[in-house]
């Protein structure tokens, strides 16, 4: 379990470098054939198998950061970067964010993250959160073998640390393209350009915590919405890779 946790957050320093603002103590206790997770000594939940713990900690740490990092806007998105800038991929659960970001990271792009990215509210630049990519069973065949964990909400998962492809934590880059991925084997594949108004409306739905009572986030989002954006319906990660190569790298 410790190895899984280290793989999950391999791209992050193992100790705080800088001013520590708030500490969350997570304790995992084996007790009565169950695994209990405590936060600062308070029992959050207990699970029947250790395989549930890493996915729980992954979500818990993300949620904690979203609630505690006040100087950045958290967006539900994956991202990769090339020399042209960041390809931001906001999307709901099951849209293919993790698969695409890992696939592209293994093909030369810098890995920004598969679930959560940060927007600088003054510059609208994007910053990475390069935790390990969490790949669901449907995409196992695309990547190497790895230990399988189980999330009650997402099913079997494999974690892939980005290694040297992870963007450094202090990176801040502009968005080059916004791709709203929509994985669907039933619909015909296609890339559909979006106007800035549509992009703004979609982006506003992808912010963790939304815009309610956070109007200071609005200008940065509006600025980000001016980035060329598409809705990409795809059946295979290769289709997005080819489109990006033609559109962004060219």
């Amino acid at each position, binding site marked *: 379990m410790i190895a899984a946790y280290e793989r999950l957050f391999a791209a992050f320093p193992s100790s705080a470098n800088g001013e520590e603002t708030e500490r*969350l103590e997570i304790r995992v206790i084996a007790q009565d054939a169950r695994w*209990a*997770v*405590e*936060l*600062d*000594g*308070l*029992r*959050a*939940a*207990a*699970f*029947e198998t250790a395989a*549930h713990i890493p*996915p*729980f900690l992954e*979500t*818990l740490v993300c*949620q*904690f950061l*979203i*609630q*505690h990092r*006040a100087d950045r806007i958290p967006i539900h998105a994956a991202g990769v970067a090339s020399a042209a800038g960041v390809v931001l991929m906001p999307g709901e659960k099951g849209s293919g964010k993790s698969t695409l970001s890992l696939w592209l990271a293994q093909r030369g792009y810098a890995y920004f993250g598969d679930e959560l990215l940060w927007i600088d509210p003054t510059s609208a630049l994007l910053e990475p959160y390069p935790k390990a990519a969490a790949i669901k069973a449907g995409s196992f065949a695309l990547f190497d073998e790895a230990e399988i964990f189980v*999330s*009650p*909400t997402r099913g079997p998962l494999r974690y892939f640390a980005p290694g040297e492809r992870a963007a450094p934590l202090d990176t801040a880059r502009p968005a080059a393209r916004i791709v709203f991925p929509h994985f669907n084997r039933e619909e015909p594949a296609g890339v559909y350009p979006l106007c*800035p*108004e549509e992009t*703004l*409306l979609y982006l*506003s739905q992808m912010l963790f*915590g*939304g*815009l*309610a*009572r*956070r*109007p*200071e986030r*609005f*200008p940065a989002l*509006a600025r980000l*919405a001016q980035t060329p954006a598409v809705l990409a319906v795809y059946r295979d990660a290769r289709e997005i890779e080819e489109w990006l190569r033609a559109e962004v790298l060219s």
Partner: protein
Amino acid sequence: MKREIEHLCECLWWAIGQRGPATAAEPDWSRWLALVDEHKLGAFLYSRLRGRAEWPEQVRSALAAQHVTSGFLNGLRLREQARILARILPAARCVVLKGAALALTRYAEAAERDMVDLDLFCARREDVDTALDILRANQYAPTRAIPGHHHLPPMLHRSGRLSVELHTNLTTPGLPSAFLEQFFADRVHVSTPGGIAVPVADRAHLLFHHGLHTLKDPIESPLLRNLFEIAWMASDFGPDEWTRFTRIAESSGRSEVVRRALALARDYFPVDLPPFKRPRYSSIEFWARRRLGWIEDAMRPATRRLRHIGVKHFDRMPSGRWRTDALDMARVAAVSVKNGIAHHARARLAPLRGALLHRVEAHELAFGEHAALLRPESGQVFVLRGDAIAVWRAAAAPVSGAELYRRLLAQGLPPRAARRAVRSLLALELIAPASNTAGAHGAPDL
């Protein structure tokens, strides 16, 4: 009682060790799950009965998903609750109420009980002020006020970690001050792992307070969970506690409200209660039973309609009548129809008459050829075309419908486009009759 309700109630009673496995006929599991969802019971059932209950695989995995989601959301809320209480309690005399108190006294882990907010009853006005200062210093800010309510506007953390409601009384209309003093004096302390002694109401007052609020909103609240919690609390009361509880209820002057909740809880759970007079049947019981009966997809038109009628029933009770009065559907329906016609007439005709219109609070940003509006309360974003934004700008101060049209026509808008734009903004509730936007002024520039 429908078999899904019966089976679920048996499962809940089993989960607290008061009986063996459910014996009711096997339910329709998709309806059973819908009921569990609607009343926020999935995480609790999974935590207590996994490995024991024989659920179909899809039910088991749906409950497991609810449990894990509740675990990280409520785990972090419980932690934030402990953090903020550690700052407030040394400085202000407070008692933790409702779900937060139950999470500390009844439930084994944060995942089991959804906890939306922290309710704190403050003994004196200066304690409220102190608590408010501490909350503000910890990045909490007030949200919308409910005039005349027994708690202040909820204080929400900037990053949505937790909402805190400071209560100046235990209900609306308020209980007498002598009762509140006794409520506070009888508090007990619960030790938490962080070393904080958290004050909560004693068992009798806790049951009284829960009973007082269980039927406040039979339509939108997790009603079955609330009834279950009442039955659970009552299930381990001894004779002395019942005597005390009865004395408390009678001294509050709200004994009927609490008896109504206990009687309804007894209808669904086999809890032993001392004999008491059941209040007469009222609209509360009528809607509570309807609510527990609509085990359907909440998005189905029939369910949505029934829910809407239930909410409006209480909104539109004829003046002078109480929610606990005997059911009077004919008169409520008549008032409902009358109000509906009046509302429709206002929405359609106000722009054409002298009624004052005013825009609601929103932030405006230039966005290419358009303008984007953000409503800070809801976080909704609107992108408006030129004619619509002209209406929005023209309604910066209260203006009559007729004057608004004159201004739009003066700006060169064709009459039809002007009318359409005004109606669209009314429908989107971006402008409204001035009485609805009283106190809402333009949002500050970003």
